[in-house]
């Protein structure tokens, strides 16, 4: 264009050009705003669900809430295991500026020792981020008060309340109840395998032994959860939803605390075991293993010093002797041996043998001694049981042989689990050819058989097995299963656990039972019976059998002299019994280790147990007569002592 055109500006043309450009701009602006709007529409309408979910994921945390563990009562409703609130001091590491300084200050304030501090740092390594670590697991009232006064100085340090298991009767029921302890690495792996990790998400303790372990699933309950709204730092702003946990079931055991206490008192710290079971349904009224220990030590995590003491103690308190103690049954099985002989026809109720005081396998020089050196003379089966004649049974088993003996005794429960409802049980040994081959890779010798006849040799049994075998005998072949669990509390009432029975023992002639039982009656009632002294003047008629188990083998001519032997080489005193004779109600088995003769050391314990049982029964009957409550236990409700929101929300 030429100069004049430039000088002469065409204002209307410029204006028109501008308006065109403005129109283009508006189109452009609207187009871009549409793009924005479409994108926002896509986010808010099309992807709404996705972002809503992500927004909720951001803000909503689901925290599991541990259920309260079910309580355990004895058969009369006495509380055996309860939950008590405890207070622990916890530190949220992420909230502390100078951790070491804070820990030192708190240690000084609360009087903690180096162990506590080391423990804290050990735990800290294992803990997940933002989860508090306990500095003190169990605050005393003074410590709690001291800290509360100074709390304002310690942001990020809090007192937390938990329910912890407590066993009010201490060492009386340790081996039966067992205990709960902190869930450890092994438990975690097991729970993971069983797919129960979620169930235990908020749980700290798990049953480790005894009933607590066996009925863990029932006692534990179902966890609840709370949905909480958190901010970007994970701090809980409010609780959106709370689904309460379903507490574990309360259970009643067949245990009678009074009988359990009695048994513990009778053993008086001596090594041994007393078991008393209901002859009809196998309910375990008392099951004591002595010596015992306080299970509460394990609930809070036992110190390694205390644990080593228990572990290495000569008297092995950690073992449940009632179910894990393997003792030669000795003469306590002579009734069953007699039944075997009668059933196999090697003896009759009338047949007699001559006992010169020892017995020899024909055509050998090996002599088996009778406990009575000068012999019992002519003995029939009754006499043999009453006086515990060894020779009679040497001859009997010699004729029957090991194979039939082993098979017969297994029917009474020897060499097998009794089926009692705790996991700590051993089968002990009912020897057989196959067993010896497997165990020692050796053939069975005839010599091995003979001592089996008097419950010695390779034969071992647990006190619970002896009680079971005696009950089966008293019930004339009915095979009961010892059971701790009596009933389970349901909403309104309770569910009685039906007794368990195994296949009964059938003899060729039912009358044989009476022969063995009469012999057993004679042991405690006849003038010649070995335990007549212990059972003199009872108000009930009992039947029993003593046993004196050699712990060390003696040479043929050696005389047993308790005084000369080291204590742990002395004989184990054993006794099995039931009462009343006519209609058996209760069966007991007693083992006192290294105490000496069964009649003099174990029989009085059995007698005292029966006395206590029948006295208690009489008192109960009288109470019923006068309509008085015998024991008035107020079943403590498994109430939520801690508000779950409080417990979980911190």
């Amino acid at each position, binding site marked *: 264009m030429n100069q004049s055109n430039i000088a002469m500006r065409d204002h209307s043309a410029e204006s028109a050009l*501008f308006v065109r450009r403005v129109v283009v701009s508006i189109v452009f602006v609207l187009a871009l705003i549409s793009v924005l709007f479409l994108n*926002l529409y896509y986010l808010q309408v099309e*992807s709404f669900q996705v*972002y809503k979910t*992500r927004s909720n994921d951001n803000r909503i945390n689901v925290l599991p809430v541990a259920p309260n563990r079910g309580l355990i009562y004895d058969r009369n409703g006495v509380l055996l295991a309860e939950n008590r609130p405890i207070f622990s001091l916890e530190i949220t590491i992420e909230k502390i500026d100078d951790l070491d300084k804070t820990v030192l200050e708190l240690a000084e304030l609360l009087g903690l020792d180096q162990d506590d501090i080391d423990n804290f740092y050990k735990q800290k390594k294992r803990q997940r981020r933002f989860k508090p670590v306990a500095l003190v697991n169990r605050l005393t009232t003074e410590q709690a008060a001291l800290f509360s006064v100074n709390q304002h100085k310690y942001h990020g340090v809090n007192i937390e309340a938990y329910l912890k298991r407590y066993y009010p009767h201490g060492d009386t029921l340790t081996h039966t109840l067992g205990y709960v302890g902190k869930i450890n690495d092994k438990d975690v792996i097991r729970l993971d395998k069983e797919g129960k990790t979620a169930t235990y998400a908020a749980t700290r303790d798990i049953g480790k032994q005894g009933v607590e372990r066996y009925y863990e699933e029932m006692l534990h309950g179902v966890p609840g959860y709370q949905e909480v709204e958190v*901010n970007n730092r994970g701090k809980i702003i409010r609780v959106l939803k709370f689904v309460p946990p379903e507490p574990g079931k309360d259970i009643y055991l067949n245990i009678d605390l009074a009988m359990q206490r009695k048994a513990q008192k009778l053993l008086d710290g001596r090594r041994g075991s007393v078991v008393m079971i209901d002859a009809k349904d196998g309910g375990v009224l008392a099951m004591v293993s002595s010596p015992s220990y306080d299970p509460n030590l394990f609930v809070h995590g036992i110190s390694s010093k205390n644990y080593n003491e228990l572990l290495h103690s000569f008297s092995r308190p950690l073992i449940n002797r009632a179910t894990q103690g393997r003792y030669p049954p000795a003469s306590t099985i002579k009734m069953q041996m007699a039944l075997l002989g009668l059933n196999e026809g090697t003896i009759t109720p009338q047949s007699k043998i001559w006992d010169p005081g020892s017995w020899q396998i024909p055509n050998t020089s090996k002599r088996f001694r009778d406990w009575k050196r000068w012999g019992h003379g002519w003995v029939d089966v009754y006499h043999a049981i009453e006086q515990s004649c060894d020779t009679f049974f040497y001859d009997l088993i010699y004729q029957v042989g090991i194979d039939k003996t082993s098979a017969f005794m297994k029917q009474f429960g020897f060499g097998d689990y009794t089926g009692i409802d705790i996991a700590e049980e051993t089968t002990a040994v009912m020897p057989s050819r196959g067993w010896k081959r497997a165990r020692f890779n050796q053939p069975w010798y005839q010599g091995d058989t003979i001592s089996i006849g008097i419950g010695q040799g390779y034969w071992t049994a647990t006190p619970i097995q002896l009680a079971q075998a005696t009950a089966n005998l008293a019930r004339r072949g009915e095979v009961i299963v010892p059971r701790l669990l009596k009933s389970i509390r349901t909403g309104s009432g309770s569910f009685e656990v039906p007794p368990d029975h195994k296949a009964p023992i059938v003899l060729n002639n039912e009358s044989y039972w009476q022969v063995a039982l009469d012999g057993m009656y004679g042991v405690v009632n006849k003038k010649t019976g070995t335990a007549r002294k212990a059972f003199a003047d009872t108000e009930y008629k009992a039947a029993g059998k003593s046993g004196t188990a050699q712990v060390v083998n003696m040479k043929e001519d050696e005389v047993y002299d308790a005084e000369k032997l080291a204590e742990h080489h002395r004989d184990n005193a054993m006794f099995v019994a039931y009462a009343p004779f006519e209609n058996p109600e209760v069966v007991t088995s007693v083992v006192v280790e290294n105490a000496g003769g069964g009649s003099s050391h174990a029989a009085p314990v059995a007698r005292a147990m029966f006395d206590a049982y029948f006295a208690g029964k009489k008192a109960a009957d009288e109470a019923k007569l006068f309509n008085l409550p015998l024991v008035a236990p107020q079943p403590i409700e498994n109430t939520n002592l801690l508000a779950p929101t409080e417990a979980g929300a911190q």
Partner: protein
Amino acid sequence: MERHQENTIWYKLHIDLPLLLGILGLMSLSLIVLYSAGGQDMDLMIRQIVRLGFGLGTMIFMAQLSPNFYARWAMPVFLLGVALLVSVLLFGHVGKGAQRWINLGFFMFQPSEIMKLAMPLMVASYIGSKSLPPSLKHTFVACAIILTPTLLIAKQPDLGTSLLVAASGIFALFLAGVSWRLIGVAVAGASAFAPVLWFFLMHNYQRQRVLTFLNPESDPLGSGYHIIQSKIAIGSGGIFGKGWMQGTQSQLDFLPERHTDFIFAVFSEEFGLVGIALLLMLYIFIICRGLFIASQGQSAFSRLSAGALTLTFFVYVFVNIGMVSGLLPVVGVPLPLISYGGTSMVTLLAGFGILMSIHTHKRLLAN
């Protein structure tokens, strides 16, 4: 019909009522969202109200000055601005890793803010003094005018502001009628320049922003966090929103910068698509009013500067909403008239003051 207004009180006060109402509408929304986003912090509210008042005052003051005044002072202020930008680079105060501030002893300010106004006025006065559409030579001179402060600001580094400043100049040039062919060449040239920008001119953190923008999920806890949380906030708002002060993303602190650059996410979360539609309509109204004022301008300078200022305002809106909703990389551009913050709000309102001046000083010009 505008003529009818010449005798109204508003005309005499040099205030454009529709524009003022639009602005006041946005300011009201700003205070409502801010109350929620700021966690009901009354101090924050009061500071913002004071700023809004100061901004409105500035706007009215700017509206009193005639367009001739702006045309005359465009060049000196622009040169002063360039000088200040250079001095910021040399002696500037470092804040948040960037040199943007200049300390006058009693007062800290960002020279780049001056540029936001000086740039469109400078380009408009230069191009407007020539015959339109501008010749190739004048276009190149204008480009040089645009590029100088843009690069200086980008060097601070402040990518967001340099973008806005450049845009305001480019818009003036565009509205002046630069040929489409030239625009095509420029766009092609810019595309070719992009790799140079990426490899030689951008800072690491700027590159990171772009990368994060392209794939925010790649770094969900680091630089992608802002975008992800912002999109969650917007998306979870749905059609009707979660309700005022009920936005969980913002109230529970998941959303960063929630009362400044990311306030749009708070707004979207609490008021949903319906609220967004209302907000966008307010913006469109203001932009249309601005462009209308521009088209009514009596001189080329008036038209170009008013148009450029209005379109720059749109760029604010587009860049902010685009970045908060994940369409654009995160650059520090506030949502105009809504975000909490001082200087940029005052600058924007000053710009609207110039628009009002252009619209209400016609008779003087006609004389």
